[in-house]
C-alpha cells in the first residue's frame, strides 16, 4: 500500500498520560494520501486521544507529531484548513438552521459566505435534506444531524478527513452513499482516518487497518495481510484475538443465567 509521496501524518513514539494513567504508549504511524485507514480498538484504547492530539485539542503529549509536516502545538493553525473532522458525539450549534450553521463553518475555513452556502445547499440536497436546509438543527433526527456533520467536514475540500463513527444513525441507503463517497474521495488522493466499532464496515471500506490496544498499535496492514497473519475469518474475530478477548461466550451465558434467575 505504500506510496512514494510524503506522509500527510507522521506520529513518532507518541505518548500521552492523564494524571498517571497512560493512554498512549508509543504510537508510530505514517499516513499517506489516498489511504482509508480503519482506526479500531476497544473502548479506552486511545483512539480519540490520538485524533484530538492531531487536531491540536489535547496538549501535553510526548513524542513527535507532524500533520502536513507541521507540529500542531507550535501555535500556527493554518494546517487545520486542510482537515475535515466529524466528532463522535453529534455536537452542533443546534439552535441554528442547517443553512446558518454550515455557512458559518465554511466561513471559518476561509470560504466566502456565498460559496459556503451554495456548496452546503447542494450537498444537503444530494443527501435528501434540501427541504430541511432552512430548519433548525434541533428539530433534526440523529441521521439528519450526522449528515450535517458530514457536510460540514467536507465543505472546504480537505486533504485529510478524521471521521469518528461517521455512519451512526444513517439509514442503509445513506450508508451506501457515504461509503461510496469515501472511496471516491480516497481515489482522488485524500487520506481518510476512520474510527468505528462496526467491524463489518471497517473491513469493507478500509484499505489499511490499524488496531490500537492499551495505547499501542498491535496490528497494522490491509485486511488480507491481517488475515494472513492471524488465520482468522473476519475482522471481528481478528479484533477479539488481538485484544485478547475470548470469553464472550462465557460472559453471554452468565448474563442469560442472571436474566433467568429473576
Amino acid at each position, binding site marked *: 500500500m505504500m506510496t512514494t509521496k510524503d506522509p500527510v501524518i507522521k506520529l513518532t513514539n507518541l505518548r500521552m498520560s492523564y494524571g498517571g494513567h497512560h493512554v498512549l504508549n508509543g504510537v508510530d504511524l505514517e499516513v499517506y494520501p489516498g489511504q482509508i485507514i480503519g482506526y479500531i480498538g476497544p473502548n479506552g484504547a486511545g483512539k480519540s486521544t490520538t485524533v484530538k492530539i492531531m487536531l491540536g485539542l489535547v496538549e501535553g503529549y510526548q513524542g513527535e507529531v507532524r500533520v502536513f509536516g507541521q507540529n500542531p502545538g507550535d501555535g500556527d493553525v493554518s494546517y487545520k484548513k486542510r482537515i475535515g473532522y466529524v466528532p463522535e458525539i453529534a455536537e452542533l*450549534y443546534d439552535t441554528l438552521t442547517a443553512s446558518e450553521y454550515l455557512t458559518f463553518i465554511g466561513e*471559518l475555513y476561509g470560504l466566502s459566505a456565498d460559496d459556503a452556502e451554495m456548496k452546503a445547499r447542494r450537498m444537503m440536497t444530494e443527501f435528501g435534506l434540501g427541504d430541511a436546509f432552512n430548519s433548525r438543527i434541533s428539530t433534526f433526527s440523529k441521521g439528519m444531524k450526522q449528515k450535517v456533520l458530514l457536510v460540514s467536514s467536507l465543505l472546504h475540500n480537505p486533504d485529510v478527513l478524521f471521521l469518528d463513527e461517521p455512519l451512526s444513525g444513517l439509514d442503509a441507503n445513506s450508508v451506501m452513499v457515504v461509503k461510496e463517497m469515501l472511496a471516491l474521495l480516497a481515489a482522488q488522493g485524500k487520506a481518510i482516518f476512520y474510527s468505528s466499532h462496526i467491524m463489518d464496515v471497517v473491513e469493507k471500506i478500509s484499505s489499511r487497518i490499524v488496531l490500537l490496544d492499551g495505547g499501542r498499535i498491535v496490528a497494522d496492514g490491509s485486511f488480507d495481510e491481517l488475515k494472513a497473519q492471524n488465520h482468522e475469518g473476519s475482522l471481528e474475530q481478528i479484533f477479539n484475538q488481538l485484544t485478547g478477548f475470548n470469553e464472550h461466550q462465557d460472559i453471554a451465558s452468565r448474563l442469560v443465567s442472571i436474566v433467568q434467575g429473576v
Partner: protein
Amino acid sequence: MKEMKSLQVLDRFRGLFEKIGVEYPVMRRIVQVKLAMDARRKPTLAKSSNQKRKQDTAESNQFLRSLWLYVLFGGFSSMFVLMGDNLLFQMSILFGIMMFMVMTSMISDFSSVLLDIRDRSILATKPINRRTLTMAKTVHIFIYLFFLTGAIAVIPLAVGLFRQGIGFFALMLLELILMDLLIVVLTALLYLVVLRFFDGEKLKDMINYVQIGMTITIAVGYQVLVRLFDFTEMDIVFKPAWWQYLVPPVWVGASFQTLLHPGEGMTYAGLAVLSVVVPLAAFLLYLKLMPALERNLQKLAEPSAKSGQRSGKMLRRISDWLCSSPQESAFFRFTWSMLGTEREFKLKVYPSLGFSIVFPFIFLFSNGLDQGLEGISGSRSYLFIYFSGIMLPTLIMMLRYSSRYKAAWIYRTAPITSEASIYKGALLASLVRLMLPLYVVEAAIFAVLFGASIIPDLIVAGLAMFAYAIFCFLCMRKGLPFSEPFEAAGQQNQSFVFMGLMLLLGGFGLLHWLATSLPFGVVAYGLLMIAGTWLGWRLAFRTQGTKKVARPDGND
C-alpha cells in the same frame, strides 16, 4: 441572521483588535453567530414572567426584553445616590448591589456562554488562532455585560448626573467598566477553581443553586429594599478597617470619596487605587488563564465519578414503611431521586421553596414585632406558619414536568396495574422530601420564639398542611410525574386554580385562628384535618385506575 447593532459598534474597534493579533473578520463572525443563537434562548429572570411563548416568532432577544427588571432594580438602588452626603458609604452599598446583581446574572444566564463545551469540538478544530477564539468569547460576554450594566446603572447614572454633577457621572462610568472587568474575571476564576478541584456535575449544581438564590433574592429584595428607606435616617460613620481592602465595592466607594470629597487621608486613596489596579491586573491574568479554563472544560463532558449509594438502605426502609404496595414504594424512591437530581425541576420549584421559608418570618416580623419579642409570645401570630404551605401548589403542579419527559414511555411499557400507586408514591415522596423538613425546622424556630405551649397548634397546622397538599392534588389536572415538557407548563392557564388554592391556604389558617378562640376548638380542628386527609387520600386516587390520562409522549 441579521446584522446586530452591537457588531457595528464593535467594528469601530477593529484596529485595536487587529493590533493584538486577532483575526477580526473571523471573530466578528463567531460573535454574530453566538448572538443569533442567544436570541433563540431564554434567560432565567424572564422565565417566570412571560408564561406564553409563541413558537418561532420574529427573532428577538429575550434577554434584552427582560432588562426592564434590572432597570427597576437600578431605580430602587438609585436612592443611595440621592440620600446623604457620605459618598463612601452610599457608593459602596450601590456598587455592592450592582455587583451582586450583575454577578449572579452572569453566573445564572451566561454560564452557558462561558462553559459551552461544543466550542471545543466545533471551533477549536477549525483554523482559528487561539487569541481570536479567546477574544470572541470575551467580546460576546462583554456585549451582554454592557446591556446588563447599562440597564441596572441607567437610573443611578442619571440621578448622579443631576444631583452630584458631571464629575460624579464620569467617575461612575469608569468604575462601572472596571467593575465589569472584575466580574468577568471573578466568574471565570470561580469556574476554573471549581473545575480544577471538582467535576463538571458539581459546577452545574453550583450554577443551579446560584440561579435559585438569585430568584429568591430578587423576590425578597423588593421587600427589603422598600424597608431600607428607614435606614437612610441613620448616621453611619465609616471607620477604615483592614477587611475593607478585601471588599471591592468599598474600593469604589473610596474612589468617589477621595476624588469628590478630598481631604480624607491616605487610607481612602489606597482603596481608590485598588479599584483601578485590581480589575486591570485581573483582566490580564484572565487572558492568560482562559486557555486553562478551556482545557478544564473537558471535565464537563466527562461522566462524574461519584455514585449515589449513600442513602439507599435508609430510603428503602422509609419508603417501605410509608407506602402500602411495593410499586408505590418504588415510585416513592424514584420521585425522591428525581427531586434531588433534576436541575430544571429544582430551578422551577426551589424558589417557591425559598418563599415558604421566608414568608412566615417576613409576615411575622412586619406585623407581629411592634411589641418586641416578648409581645409576640402571647399573640397568635404563630399562625403565620401557614404561609410555609405556599410552595405546595407549585410543587404539586410541577411534579408532572421534566426536561427528560420523553423517558415517560416507561409508564406505558411497564406492567403497572394501577396508576394510583404512581401518584401516591410521587406525592408522598415530594411531601416527605421537601415539605416535611422545611416545616419541622420552621415549627421548631416558632416553638422557640413563642414557647412550648404552641406545640399542639404546630402539630395540628402540620396536619392541615398535609390535608391542603391532598386538596391541591385533587384540584389540579392529573399528569403522570415527570411526563410532560416544562414548556407545556406555561401553556395551560391554571392561574385561577392557583389563586383559589392560595385563598384556601388562608382559609385553613383563618379556621385555625377561629378554632383557637373556642374551647377544644383546636382539637376539633385537628380531628377535622385528620378526617379530611383520610377522605382526600381515598378520593384523590380512586378514579385513576380507569381514567385515561393525557398522553405523556410529546411530539416526536
